[in-house]
């Protein structure tokens, strides 16, 4: 059983034209791997992530996280196993970063001191601990992405889903964001991301999405099993 399994997922939008956004998409993501899906605009990449996060339900096929059908509890796994990062750090203007991360945890019933500690640790983990008292509008593109990842990390996700992590990031800072995602994978977190830039595919299992169809290896290739003893 894979951590995330999409099996024959189809998705359509629109009442009249019923535009097909995803066609028979199958994908398996394992713990500790980075999977990056390249796609042009309107290829369906963001929809694919929302279905994988359980935010949207597929019209056909199934999306399972840890074996459970995400359709059964839409959105319920967000913050409980799945961390979803929006392209931009949607923030309440004026509140310092640390307060925003802390209040998100308090809203889920975490005690104040624990929430504050976890928020600080998350900011440190993504290397913006020094910006804890900054307001979100004071962050540059790379820092804002790190803040979004930090917010997801406060819930200790086993799967981190992130939409175009490098799109608004300065060219020189992009590799730092990618290195952060790979380091999270080394700690066991599965990372599923989309991109419109080929450079973001480095070191990842890379796939492309074209007109809603996924191309590339749908599952991680496992090493061939070699028998230590002669069989038969």
């Amino acid at each position, binding site marked *: 059983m894979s951590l995330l399994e999409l099996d024959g997922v189809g998705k359509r939008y629109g009442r009249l034209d019923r535009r097909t956004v995803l066609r028979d998409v199958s994908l398996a993501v394992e713990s500790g791997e980075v999977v990056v899906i390249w796609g042009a605009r309107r290829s369906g990449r963001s929809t694919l992530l929302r279905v994988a996060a359980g935010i949207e339900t597929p019209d056909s096929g199934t999306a399972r996280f840890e074996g459970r059908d995400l359709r059964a509890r839409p959105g319920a796994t967000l913050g409980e196993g799945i961390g979803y990062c929006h392209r931009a750090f949607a923030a309440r203007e004026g509140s310092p970063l640390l307060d925003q991360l802390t209040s998100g945890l308090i809203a889920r019933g975490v005690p104040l001191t624990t929430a504050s500690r976890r928020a600080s640790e998350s900011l440190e983990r993504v290397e913006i601990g020094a910006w804890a008292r900054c307001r979100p509008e004071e962050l540059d593109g790379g820092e804002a992405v790190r803040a979004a990842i930090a917010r997801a990390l406060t819930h200790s996700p086993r799967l981190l889903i992130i939409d175009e992590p490098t799109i608004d990031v300065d060219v020189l800072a992009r590799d730092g964001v990618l290195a952060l995602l790979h380091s999270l994978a080394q700690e066991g977190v599965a990372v599923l991301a989309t991109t419109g830039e080929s450079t973001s595919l480095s070191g990842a299992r890379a796939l492309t999405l*074209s*007109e809603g169809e996924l191309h590339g290896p749908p599952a991680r290739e496992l090493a061939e099993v070699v028998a230590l003893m002669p069989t038969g």
Partner: protein
Amino acid sequence: MQSAVHWALLGLVIERPSYGYELAQRFEQSYEGMLELSGFSYIYTALDTLRCRGLVEEIPGMGSERQPKLGYRATAEGVRDYQQRLIAQMREDFRRSRLFARQLAVLAGEPELALDVIESYGQACLEEAGDALLPDVEDVCADRGSGLAERLVSQERRLAMEARLPWVDYARREFKALAADRLQPQ
């Protein structure tokens, strides 16, 4: 001189004067997965060819005093020819890309065949993009000269796909449309 191995070997001699065995070792390390030697001894044949063409010259007594070895360094002509070869090679790469696109277009009457080719090409692009390593930023800060070849190769692999992946996407759409047209009743 057509042999890619000869030019690659000349490049190593330009990078640093060296003797035969060391060059064979550096060749394997530097061009692993890109070029292959038929055997270590081929290095001496190739060095002799480069020497006869005046691209390298011998340096007697290289290595330790106890075991002096015959070394090689590049001549000025060798450096100039190598530079010209790099420029010509780049143009050859462009020509190959155009040739591939032209040859694919021949399959307009068999779009399903073309789509299979595009699928394989796209897969190769994804592997190339995914296998390229992220450059180590700390290494660059510490010493810009160290690991330069690895960084240049890595970035070339990563950035080359910036054009190829959208091209695969585009070609797939073209041939899918052709395939759909064939399914339409006349």
